[in-house]
């Protein structure tokens, strides 16, 4: 297959960037999107052109390191991550726009690679859970209803790629934060710090400069881990309750 690529090239965070045109030739339909870029890069290197920088790691859809906004959609037209997107999804001969994940708090490092450590700092702000140390506890010693366990597991599926913020017209990271707040807040193990966790994580999210949620739900549409935006409603609820408790002084 052949494709006409329009790729964002940018030297570093402080230099202006622009779209450059490249031809991707003889791409097997079963190549992943990242493998297609590998092939294009080999060609660029052989021509003495600086290869295109992009993020990747596991290439099996679990680490959340790959990014890329393809034809305006973070992770492109498939339902998973960019590394799990195959070229057969595209029409032969079509033009493909490749831009970095865009969000104010995601500065470009180079080309298509952006710095997503803002998300790590939000996780850090979440803090610890109170847990008994010492000998290993018996399995299943804490009763957790199946529905709650499933719900927490759905939230925990977030791989922290940042596509939600990249998809959001407001650059809001709320789907990420909501998933991370919820997967602990739902479980008994996360209960003791429930209020403090949601307050600190939301405050860190604001400090990093992410926008607010206008309920567009574009995050939900692109999330490769299929986190439902109803977790944002849960975070809103937890934050509302925790804020009232803190304001009137009854926070544990």
């Amino acid at each position, binding site marked *: 297959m052949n494709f006409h690529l329009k790729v964002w090239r940018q030297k570093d965070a402080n230099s202006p960037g622009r779209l450059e045109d490249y031809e991707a030739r003889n791409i097997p339909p079963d190549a992943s999107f990242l493998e297609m870029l590998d092939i294009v890069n080999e060609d660029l290197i052989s021509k003495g052109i600086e290869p295109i920088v992009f993020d990747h790691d596991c290439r099996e859809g679990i680490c959340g390191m790959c990014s890329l906004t393809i034809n305006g959609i973070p992770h492109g037209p498939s339902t998973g991550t960019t590394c799990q997107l195959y070229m057969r999804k595209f029409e032969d001969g079509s033009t493909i726009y490749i831009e970095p994940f865009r969000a104010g708090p995601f500065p470009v490092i180079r080309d298509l690679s952006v710095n997503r450590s803002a998300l790590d700092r939000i996780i850090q702000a979440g803090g610890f859970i109170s847990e008994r140390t010492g000998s290993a506890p018996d399995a299943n010693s804490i009763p957790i209803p199946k529905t709650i366990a499933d719900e927490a597991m759905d939230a925990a599926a977030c791989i922290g790629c940042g596509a939600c913020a990249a998809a959001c017209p407001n650059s809001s990271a709320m789907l990420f934060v909501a998933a991370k707040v919820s997967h602990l807040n739902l479980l008994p193990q996360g209960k003791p710090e429930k209020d*403090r966790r949601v307050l600190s994580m939301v*405050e860190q999210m604001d400090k990093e400069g992410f*926008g607010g949620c206008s309920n567009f739900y574009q995050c939900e549409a692109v999330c490769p881990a299929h986190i439902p935006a109803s977790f944002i409603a849960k975070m809103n609820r937890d934050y*509302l309750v925790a804020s009232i408790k803190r304001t009137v002084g009854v926070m544990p």
Partner: protein
Amino acid sequence: MSASGSSSATVVSIPCLLTRWLLSSLGKKTIVAVTGSLLVLFLIGHLLGNLTIYLGQDVINTYAQKLQSMGPLLWIVRLGLLAVFLLHIIFVVLLIAENLRASATKYIAKDNMGSTLFARTMKYTGLIVLAFVVFHISHFTLGLVQPEFYHLYQTLPDGSKRHDVYNMVVRGFQNVPISIFYILALTFLTFHLSHGVASIFQTLGISNRFLRPLLERASIAFAWLLWAGYVSIPISILLGFVQLKLPA
């Protein structure tokens, strides 16, 4: 706070904690949702009042007279409503500013990823509603638009006179451009609410993955029901179902 977070030695005052909450991204949105729902409640009440026009000149004029006779209470409600409306706008502006700052660089290739047009146009439909509200108050509350119809009075059997709201409204809406403007503005308000009402539940956290699709459909149905109620009045007047009542 306990051992976990910030030191318990610092005493943080309640007003400070309140602003920290309300000026956070979620706090601002909470205010937009709470003020939005109060405005929606007002819209329901206002519609019920307006619909008394179908019960005849006496009923709507009596209703208007009752409202007017509440005196200071009416002013408290009016000022409260104005404050709620202004708070909605102020916090919307704060949110928009924050969101623009966060998303300064836009994509060259655009895709809306399934978001609805109504969600994406909230600021524009809101702005149209603002323009309409200014016009509407100048029209029927202050009587600046058609002063000739504002100073109409109904003479009661005992000889006393009262403001003739019925004929003011009928004359007002017999003006076709005004009626069309009114219907268009209400259509944009309906767009605002078809996204906004479901949004209230999401923002205040009264939703989950099963409720959300239901709330979204209910929100659209509610918004159009409100639309039907409001625009039925100018349409009934234009079609002559509701007519001027001239003194015998």
